[in-house]
């Protein structure tokens, strides 16, 4: 097992005077990695540079131990990529397309065909696999895109917004599949998504990119521990009493527009607040620890990256 799957050293990319990626230095261990950042932050450019779809202006990187420039083809041999936009080959049926992608990665026709059917089963494609990809719905195109990224059994899969266009149940099954890739097969996943909740659910590590720079790279556990401990509780009644009890206990409380109370707590769990509520005979209808933790961390990181003393701003 490798210690590091992706290593970037001074990686940068500019388009004319526009800087898309600036001096990225990062060593990413295997696992399920979330890539976060606002629109135009440089996430896709970072991915494209790793895949050699864009030539870096400065620096270099290794993917699965292969130098991306010097070992151009080899660096992508065990990498699967599912881009954000539709990218099918018109006129091909789903299983034909996935088989073809397997062959393009060096699989024999028989192996690629067999594997294509297995993967299409896995992503939930039924008989529609024999239909032309042109006729697919957005959700089906997402599934077949994921299948082509997995067909050659990569060590690393890079997924750009893999749940776009999927309905709730489709999204759930794809997220389950992505989450299982590392845990059951040892396939590392780098997933770029705007849906922080999805990242929080399946990733064990997060990279946050803003203004072309990596402003955060930590395991999810460390990030959550660093986060202010927030508890969100739903009063069962008498919200004013809830607020006064919490304030008297010295806890900052904020009333949200949906009637919930947002409480900052020094503890890592919600237990002290629960015992406080019990003492005052105020049972909450619902209590959630650290809701939207990643969202808050994300916003904090972005805000921090824009402060002048940080020096990361464009």
């Amino acid at each position, binding site marked *: 097992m490798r210690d590091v799957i992706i290593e970037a050293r001074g990686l940068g990319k500019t388009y004319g005077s526009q800087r898309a990626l600036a001096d990225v230095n990062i060593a990413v261990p295997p696992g399920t990695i979330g890539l976060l950042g606002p629109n135009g932050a440089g996430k896709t450019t970072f991915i494209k540079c790793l895949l050699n779809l864009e030539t870096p202006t400065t620096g270099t990187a290794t993917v699965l131990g292969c130098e991306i420039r010097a070992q151009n083809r080899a660096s992508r041999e065990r990498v699967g990529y599912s881009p954000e936009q*539709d990218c099918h080959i*018109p006129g091909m049926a789903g299983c034909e397309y996935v088989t073809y992608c397997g062959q393009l*990665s060096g699989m024999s026709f028989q192996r690629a065909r067999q594997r294509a059917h297995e993967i299409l089963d896995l992503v939930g494609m039924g008989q529609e696999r024999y239909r032309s990809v042109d006729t697919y719905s957005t959700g089906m195109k997402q599934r077949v895109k994921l299948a082509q990224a997995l067909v050659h059994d990569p060590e690393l899969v890079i997924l750009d917004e893999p749940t776009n266009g999927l309905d709730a149940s489709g999204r759930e099954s794809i997220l389950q599949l992505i989450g299982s890739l590392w845990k059951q097969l040892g396939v590392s996943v780098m997933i770029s998504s705007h849906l922080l909740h999805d990242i929080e659910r399946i990733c064990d590590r997060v990279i946050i990119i803003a203004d072309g720079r990596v402003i955060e790279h930590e395991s999810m556990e460390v990030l959550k521990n660093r986060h202010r401990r927030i508890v969100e509780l739903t009063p069962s009644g008498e919200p004013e009493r809830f607020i006064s009890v919490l304030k008297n206990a010295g806890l900052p409380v904020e009333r949200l527009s949906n009637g919930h109370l947002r409480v900052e707590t020094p503890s890592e769990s919600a237990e002290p607040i629960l015992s406080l509520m019990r003492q005052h005979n105020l049972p909450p209808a619902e209590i959630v620890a650290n809701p939207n933790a990643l969202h808050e961390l994300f916003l904090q990181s972005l805000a921090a990256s824009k402060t002048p003393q940080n020096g990361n701003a464009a």
Partner: protein
Amino acid sequence: METPLDLRRWQEKPAGVAYRRWVIVTTGLRQLTRMRIFQILLFLAWTAGVLMAAVGFIFTQSVASGGWLESWAADFGPRVHAIVSAVCSLVLLYPDICIHGLFSTVFWWHSFVGLGLSLVALSIVMPRLIARDRASNALTIYLSRPLTSFDYLVGKLGIIVGILLLLWTGPLLFGWLLSMAFAPNSDFFVYSLTALLHAGLFNLIALVTLATVALGVSSLGKNTRSVMMLWIGIWIIAGAIASIPTTPSAIRAASFSHDLFEIRQNIFRLDEILVKAGETLPIINRDVARTMIQAGEHAQSHDIASAYAGLAGLVIVSSLVFSRKLRPE
């Protein structure tokens, strides 16, 4: 949260880059051969090959001593028999003119058929080469795999080579080989080989030109219809402009169909064959000989240097276009 993955791992060593390029070629050709119109083109091309074989077969069998032509002519009396015998003897006496001349003429004729069918096929395949991959972002799928844009180009080039092999070179070789298979002596092989090499050379020049121009045009746009219109424009409209006698030679040279016509005339040298036949063959009377010499002069290429320069320019410009356009978007 977790779903059980019933998936066997694929741990074999991936096949090399030559295999991956070959996959692009064979898949592209397989997609093409499913099309009805391409099947019709294939039928026409191989029918031409069979016709060529038939002409060659009849020719080689006819001039054989005691062959069916002599026997058949004998039925029409001694005069006809004597004329036919004299013609057959001419072939044996002047094989460099008769055999080489006949096969050059047949291959020259076939080059029109082969090139024409290839151009029609390229018009069909043009949007499928690069334009459609660009429009559907399939280029990203190719280049995110262990392939470079050079491998991709080689694959697409292979599709064009495959088309020309199926529609032009294949029927040409088939026709020649079948003619030679039943030839009564080795003269037919020896004196038709030069004509075949000339045909092969022209085939190669057309292949390089058509492949680069086709790839250049196909990579110019994402809209498949506009790419097809552009190709037809470069092929037919530029060709029509070049055929106007008053068109300046620089503009004529910009038409690949005009350039290929000039190069065809220069390679097959039908002018030399006709003049030599008119001057050498004793059976031909003066009027026929004069007509043959005049036809030979008419068949000369006029501005071969401009034609080669024009094709070279088109190849360079097309190469620059597709090498710049082959980036994922």
